[in-house]
């Protein structure tokens, strides 16, 4: 590790438990080991160590972080450290009284996800994601003067309703609307043939998002994440491997992203065994793909190698078997035909959606 790696954001995955069963979830489809979730005190120690490393943003996520009963205590200690505290939630179990407690504890912002324009659509993709509860949550967030982001993961099933989704989102008066195409990892990869939108759908969505960004400029920031399966260019995943973000899994693994522990053969260290600082500096797994020494062709001679960092290691592993390979989403990748094949799946051969199983929700 050298001076180029300075973490700004700690992504604390407080739990893998979730009342929703989104078919596009990028959480692992199965876990190699299932250790208990970190306890309150352990998380508080991690927050302190992260702050000392230079972290200024804390994203409390999951799973569904609201399922942690100690969430208020966690928010409170993070706010005490001067961290900017963001809650990333489905909004489902968030009523006004809980929101008041969280705001009082020092929460700065809330990101609420919308699955579809109605509960019926949400049921198809997530088994249950009652829209009315989400709207109540969003209103509570606004009433308390917290910053609100509305997040919509786009895929073949909901992308044609983007105009209605935008209208619904704007009505909640957020400061930010995040329209992100699904990333095909975890459950999303399993369901990819049913979730990947067509090129026409993606193009329409891009145009609509650009128009909304222009129209709402100054009032609401609209961001749009294009699907790398269609752009021909890899995503600069997490701004580079173990460079700007630290992800800590529910059981304490220190990861460069939320899916890296699905790469076979990599060993990630746990905050239960060592300090965050020593892991950040010395972890073999975190150092594995830092810088550019690990790159293979075509990445190592590519002029964009320090802009996109060769794309997503997890995607490379899951589609090629080698995490060092160029992300197949890149048109220069020798494995780009896998992506092209995924795009070309005829609609008749699409498999039914396999929703995230609740077996993980211990």
């Amino acid at each position, binding site marked *: 590790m050298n001076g180029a790696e*300075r973490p*700004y*954001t700690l992504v604390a995955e407080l739990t893998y438990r979730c009342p929703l069963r989104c078919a596009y979830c990028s959480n692992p489809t199965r876990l190699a080991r299932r250790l208990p979730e970190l306890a309150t005190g352990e998380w508080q120690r991690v927050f302190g160590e992260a702050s000392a490393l*230079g972290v*200024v*943003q804390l*994203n409390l996520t999951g799973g569904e972080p609201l399922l942690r009963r100690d969430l208020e205590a966690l928010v409170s200690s993070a706010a005490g450290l*001067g961290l*900017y505290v*963001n809650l990333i939630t489905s909004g489902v179990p968030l009523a006004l009284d809980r929101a008041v407690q969280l705001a009082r504890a020092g929460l*700065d*912002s809330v*990101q609420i996800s919308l699955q579809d324009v109605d509960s019926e659509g949400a049921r198809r993709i997530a088994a249950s994601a009652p829209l009315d509860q989400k709207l109540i949550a969003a209103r509570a967030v606004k009433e308390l*003067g*917290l*910053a609100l*982001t509305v997040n919509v993961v786009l895929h073949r099933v909901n992308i044609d309703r983007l105009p209605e989704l935008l209208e619904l989102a704007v009505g909640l008066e957020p*400061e*930010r609307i995040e329209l992100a195409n699904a990333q095909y990892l975890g459950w999303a990869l399993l369901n990819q043939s049913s979730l990947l939108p067509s090129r026409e759908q993606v193009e329409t969505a891009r145009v609509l998002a650009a128009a909304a960004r222009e129209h709402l*400029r*100054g*009032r*609401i*920031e609209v961001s749009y994440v294009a699907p790398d399966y269609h752009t021909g260019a890899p995503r600069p995943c997490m701004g580079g491997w173990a460079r700007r973000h630290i992800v800590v899994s529910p059981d304490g693994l220190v990861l460069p992203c939320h899916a890296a522990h699905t790469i076979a053969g990599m060993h990630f260290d746990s905050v239960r065994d060592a300090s965050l600082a020593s892991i950040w500096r010395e972890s073999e797994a975190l150092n594995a793909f830092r810088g550019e020494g690990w790159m293979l062709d075509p990445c190592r001679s590519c002029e964009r190698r320090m802009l996109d960092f060769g794309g997503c290691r997890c995607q490379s592993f899951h589609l090629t078997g080698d995490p060092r390979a160029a992300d197949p989403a890149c048109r220069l990748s020798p494995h780009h035909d896998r992506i092209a094949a995924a795009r070309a799946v005829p609609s008749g051969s699409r498999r039914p959606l396999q929703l995230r199983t609740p077996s993980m929700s211990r």
Partner: protein
Amino acid sequence: MSGTDAPRSRSELEHWLKTESAARYHDTHPFHVAMHEGRLGRREIGVWIANRYYYQTRIPIKDALILAKSEDPAFRRSWARRLRDQDGERAGSGGLELWLRLGEAAGLEREAMISHALVLPDVRRACDAYVELVRDAALVEAVAASLTETLAPELMRQRIQAWQEHYAWLGADSVAYFRTRITNAERDGREALEFVLTNARTFEQQAACVRALVRKTEILWQLLDAVERACDRPQLARRARLLSDPMSGKRLLLYPENGLLLNGTAAEIVELCTGEIDVDQIVSLLSSRHAVERSVVEPGVRRMLDALRSRALLEVPRT
């Protein structure tokens, strides 16, 4: 409005014109409200005077266009009085002269006002659109467009009171123009209304008159929109947090799930987004602080504010 094409009676037409124009008149524009509540600073008053001067200079031109549309000596004799009112019987008198004096009282240079160097592009567009509207319209519609002046006397009364109370620094003579407008606009408005009620005979003509008047109210509103935008006092949104980064020593602007590491100038600009001063003053301040030309500072300030605005990190301008 019913679906019928029968012409409206005089009183119906008068009511129609009044309701449409009163509903859209610029007296309720946020900038006007702020002015009359004494919330404008010296610079904002100056920006308004300089830009409104451009509107004043268009008035004799559109009145001359109206004159040229009429075949009736009596109408022309009467309407020509408006030209004399605005331009004066001799040099150094008339409405435009009074307006220039008002500008001087506000610290503006007469030459700068006359050259229109201070006029905002959107103000110029709005005022030119008024002249074009009058140029292209039939006589009765062109006259109808001027009927906003029936609402002017009441606004002038309020303004005189408000200015004497809140902007005494402009001096006692500053309201002289507004005073002349109370009597002139009353007389002119009455005359113009009488002309429209008499000469808009078919329903189509009447509807066209209403449309012209509505368009005129929009032009007045756009003028204030442009002035308000120019006087925008950027204020950092509440959810943005500015702090010193312990690792780099630089200023760090944090907002939901993201942040910007700021260089020295960017940090200075963000720190000046207090809602107290406008963009122009931010430029002036930085220009004198670093002893560089305004023209060097300004593009950077605009870019930074634009970057903040595109992230919705500036409060939406007051209403």
